[in-house]
């Protein structure tokens, strides 16, 4: 693999929820960790999803048994908060990243039925945008457990970053077996 195409890997909190708490799934996480580390990778969660798992992003690790043991092992990390105001709108938002998150929110809502906000999911797209804008990585791979989010995120990021992002959708029970395969952590 070319070092120049090394991706940053962003995961949804659903990947962790679907795999279960580390203390009850030691063997599974050991296998996933092996696959992640064989690619010399780290998995990143947006700060808002850390909160969703009971964590406090201002103090990582903050004592949530959903993910802190994995963070302490050093192969999962939390990215700082992505800017953007959920209560604003696409047209009223002036920053590019806030606009992008609203565009993703619209695109996700178009894919699904129901009005529930998907603002948390837009953080994955916002983080991808930040990583690419800042050249913190050359490519981004996103793993989510929401198919409408996969489609919405893909649609918006493909417009802004064509060819730089790959987006996977997994049912909640799939990562625990799939993620033994390092190909999910490689461009």
């Amino acid at each position: 693999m070319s070092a120049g195409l090394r991706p940053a890997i962003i995961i949804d909190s659903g990947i962790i929820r679907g795999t279960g708490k580390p203390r009850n799934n030691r063997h599974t996480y050991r296998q996933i960790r092996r696959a992640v580390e064989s690619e010399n990778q780290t998995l990143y969660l947006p700060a808002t999803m850390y909160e969703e798992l009971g964590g406090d992003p201002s103090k990582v690790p903050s004592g949530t048994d959903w993910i802190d043991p994995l963070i302490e092992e050093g192969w999962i990390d939390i990215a700082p908060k992505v800017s953007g105001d959920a209560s604003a709108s696409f047209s009223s938002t002036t920053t590019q990243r806030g606009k992008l998150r609203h565009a993703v929110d619209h695109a996700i809502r178009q894919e699904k039925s129901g009005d529930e906000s998907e603002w948390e999911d837009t953080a994955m797209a916002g983080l991808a945008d930040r990583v690419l804008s800042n050249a913190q990585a050359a490519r981004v791979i996103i793993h989510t457990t929401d198919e409408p989010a996969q489609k919405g995120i893909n649609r918006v990021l493909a417009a802004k970053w064509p060819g730089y992002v790959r987006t996977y959708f997994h049912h909640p029970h799939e990562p625990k077996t799939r993620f033994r395969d390092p190909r999910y952590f490689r461009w």
Partner: protein
Amino acid sequence: MANDFAADDSRGTDDDAAGRKPRVHGLQTYFRVFQNPDLSRVYYRARDGPITVPTLREELGLSKSSAYNYIDELVDAGLFVKLEESEGATQYTATEWTLTIEVDGESLTMGPLTALVVANRTQYPSIDRVIEEHGLEALQECITEARAYDRGETTTRQFAADTGLSYGLAFEVLAAIAELFGFESAEDPMTDTDAPDDQVIDAEVDLSELERKDDPSEDEDAGNAPIGLMERRRQSGGE
């Protein structure tokens, strides 16, 4: 309803009795399908197409004697019908059924999908919690919404909102149902070639307004900082 019949209905005519082959000889197997995970899986598997003893052994990992026992039980109860042999093994096909319970004028109709999920309540504590705390109706709502999720029509958060469960419990029960029903997603990712060329999402959002420019003023990060908070701390020598 034309197919409806009630056990206490004494008005049934002799014509009905003569024209209809008796099918229900007992209720025990119906109840057992809600209680025994393997029996439930055997029935559920047969809904996808005819099964044989070797398919059950191979796909469900059952012993030969268990496979025979479950098939015999389902045939006796009228839930399986014997077909002709294929490659030396007898084939069986599943008969559709539902079970309706009426309580106080309210009715609850359950079928094989609910049976499979209920039968696995011991293996999946989230299923047990939904039944205990919210009832079978709520579990059926979860099954309906889980199937919408499998079709890509809903998200995990929407699932929680629509079923009225807490997000944590909703997610767990969705994962349990997805595993039991064998939901599968594509193994390959979406890329830019999968996205529509249309820049307009709706009346408000035009993607061409998203410019790809480096605007350091709005970047939360310095360009060369590591992505993760722990990485930053390690780099700055903290801890």
